[in-house]
């Protein structure tokens, strides 16, 4: 399938906050109450439409356990967006956000769009982190914020799509250099860009080949 742009995402956050479930809900529109644990990285993809343009999201879902950081770090590079997830029913996952954020900022390109996600919003009775706290944290650190539920699918689409919109806007503003793949953005093989910079990397000479 052809696309105008391809955005690379990375999903990070403490273990057990629901990273893989968010991805599954987004890509397959289903919820698995007990998801297999992620070791290293797993991969998912979905097409979305923004501003009438097909955009492919290529999503890297990472293991949350500390030990795997050395592996997952290498996926920050070349990511245009990051979903930083915590679990609203576990305060410690919120407390670790600063560490995650530092890690992400240190290993990614400076323009990476980060979406802060408080997941498991369906478990209101077990809530340990107020929504306002998430909002404050996001504001202080310049992140977009949303509470989601991978179980009920609440805000899941929005979380992924709003991140993409932000990236898309940055492209329009010329913040992102779309010819530099390290930014986590690629131009689709058949896409003739409207932006002034001509894509030297995507000649589209072989139609149908979703070459990355």
């Amino acid at each position, binding site marked *: 399938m052809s696309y105008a742009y391809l955005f690379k995402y990375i999903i990070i956050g403490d273990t057990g906050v629901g990273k893989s479930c968010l991805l599954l809900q987004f890509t397959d529109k289903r919820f698995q109450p*007990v998801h297999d644990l992620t070791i290293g990285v797993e991969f998912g993809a979905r097409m979305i439409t923004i501003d009438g343009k097909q955009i492919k999201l290529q999503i890297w879902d990472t293991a949350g356990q500390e030990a795997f950081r050395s592996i997952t770090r290498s996926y920050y590079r070349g990511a245009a967006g990051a979903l930083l997830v915590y679990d609203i029913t576990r305060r410690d996952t919120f407390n670790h956000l600063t560490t995650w954020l530092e890690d992400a900022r240190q290993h990614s390109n400076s323009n990476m769009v980060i979406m802060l996600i408080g997941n498991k919003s369906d478990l209101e009775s077990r809530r340990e982190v107020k929504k306002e706290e998430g909002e404050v944290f996001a504001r202080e650190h310049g992140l977009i914020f949303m509470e989601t539920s991978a179980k009920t699918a609440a805000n899941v689409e929005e979380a992924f799509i709003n991140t993409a919109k932000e990236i898309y806007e940055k492209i329009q503003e010329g913040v992102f250099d779309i010819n530099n793949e390290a930014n986590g953005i690629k131009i689709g093989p058949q896409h003739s860009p409207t932006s002034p910079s001509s894509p030297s990397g995507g000649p589209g000479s072989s139609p149908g080949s979703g070459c*990355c």
Partner: protein
Amino acid sequence: MGDSENGWVDKNEEERLGILAKYDKGREEGAQIDPWEDPAFEIYHVTDHYGFIHDTRLPEKIGGLELKRRELEIHRTDKWVKMFRAWPKYKNSDKFINRTYKGIPNKIRGWAWMHMLDLEKIKEEQQGKYDEMYKLARLHSPDIRQIDLDVNRTYRDNIMFRERYGVKQRSLFNILAAYSVYNSEVGYCQGMSQVAALLLMYMDEEDAFWGLAQLMTDPKYGMHGFFVAGFPKLVRFQAHHDKVLQVLLPKLKKHLDKHGVDSGLYTLKWFFQCFLDRVPFELALRLWDIFLLDGDKVLICGAYTILKIHLKPLVSRKSMDDVLGYLQSDIPNNFAMDLDKAIEIYRGCLDDLKRKKLDIAGDPSEDEFPKKPFGMIENIPKPVPVRREAPDEKMNKEIVAKRQQRAQLAADETDEFDNDEDELEETSMMDKASASRISLAATSVASSSIADSPRNVQRPLSSISNISYASAVQDSTGGTLERPTPSKMNGVNHIKNKSSVDNQARLTPTSESFDEPHELTRTLSKEGVSMNVNATSYSSQSNSSHASHWSSGTPTSIPAMRESFFRSNEKLHSSNMNDGGRGDSNVSDKRHTSSLGRKPVKPIRSSKSPSPPPPPPRSLQPINSTSTFISHEQTVTSTANYTSTSVFEYKSTEMTDHSAYGRSHDSMGRQRKEPPPVSPRKSVMSSISPQSSTGRSYISMDGSVSSVNIPGGEAVRIHVPYNSEISSASPAVQSSAGSSSVSPRNGLDISKNDPNRIKIDVSTNSKLP
């Protein structure tokens, strides 16, 4: 009596009639049939041969091919049973190897794996160890939270692990927790839960624990290298896998490179879990059969085989997403090849690799092997019992004075030690080393005597956090510390609450023995001065003096202790080792700080040491070890609520140990190997104990009795007054009195039989013979 008997008979009769009624009624309407008793019970129809539950009903009738396969399996099962009857004969035979490649019949699999992992032998060697580790884990495993999270999502689609907190889930939790303290370098790492769960499908809990231990540390499997921090073996195997592709599947390699499919993206689960979850379960089992037979080369060859089998579909997928999607879901869900055929191709691939000398992924690096002894806790994450408010200064002093008085009285009674005790207080053991003193492996007990004069300082009892044991051997003639050398060692540090009053009755009640090897030099070289190594030289006499002081002290929390340790380390670097007085003041300072109840400082691990060590006055190693040891002692100083029992054991090289310790370069061999000899170890051993091959020391610091067993040593008895005021004041006492039962059998029984045993008894009165 007669009434209750009648009641029982009545109940039986009632039950009998009930059963008869049910059969009389048959399946008529209203018949009470439990759902699980009925053939319509859905779980019967969706659960496969291996216990996996599927979303849809499985075919009720099996096809001709499957029928044939099952018949063959029954036939093979008989053959395997016969083979096991004469196991020693078949152990390394071609017949056994061929049959393994053909697939071990599922009913036999558990049995066969246990043989291949040599679990019977280990279990015998390590009797009681598993229980011990499990109990230790309950108190101190830092990974409980993560393990809980992961048990909850490991093979939940299998009937065995389906129920939350069901039998197998509990076993899984138990073995992972136990392993996390047994092998503290790895702890618990994600990926281990699947491996452990697989073993649990075929074995019971304790067997699976030792199975996991074997897989991790036997060089043949060496999974330790995969799961340990930095994943050194993963790096090596991925690099080798790339090389294999380059040579044998260059076209595919080019294709994957072109689409950015790095081997790091798909080999992780292949290598970490030997293909579990990444090929159909049945094929994974077949590969596991070969894994247990041949060791880790199955990973290299398996990876090559899978890619070779799926070469065409992979090359036809023209994007990263498609290629990864294929590897991630198509291969496990639709392997599209008969298993026997796949294994046949595997064998062909193995020949290819051998021909190209690519079947083995190079030499393992040092990092892939365990460096620390097993079965000890070093960085205790949280204080288990309660921290009480520290008594006020005045009261403190009174208590201390009282205690000192009693200690003095007791010490006076024990004439054998009078002189030396004083001596010890004033001099550093570095200077005092003499032939009559016995060098011993570092223990927490030993540590107390060095730094400070016990009379002026409270010596609160026991508890050691953050320690490992190592042996530093004091040369019996020269009086200098030898460089700590690799020695096979064991140790545990068990912390529990003090059980108050009748301490006297409990003689080293919580001794725990450890049968794990350790190479100190490596640890030292890596860790530098670190709390992980508490090497010390040990004077038997010193016991009396500080043992007496352990019975007193201020309760302090472990985090505070940690902090005090941290600080003391810093100070010690700049203080003279021989300056006992200054050591004293340091200690008091520290205790002071620690009782303020500061926030826990992160457990120290070498590099973050606050200040660089000064040039050592003598040789580096002894200083290192001693200073660590002193610092450690500070740690001891600050707790009173704990009782700790440390057991330390070392053995000479001829003793065999199951653990894959040390380096073995012929790791691919089929035959089980004895641990490779480490020569420096031998020399050390001989200096400790020329006559005996094994020595153990059991040091219980519960304020009641200490028993120290020193090879080639002499008997030492110490009488120490026991201050029941303090100990019973501890709120934690009652709560954990039960834990005193923690495997006393391990250490004690053995030590009783040891001719070289030295016993140090510390009791409330002086009635020792």
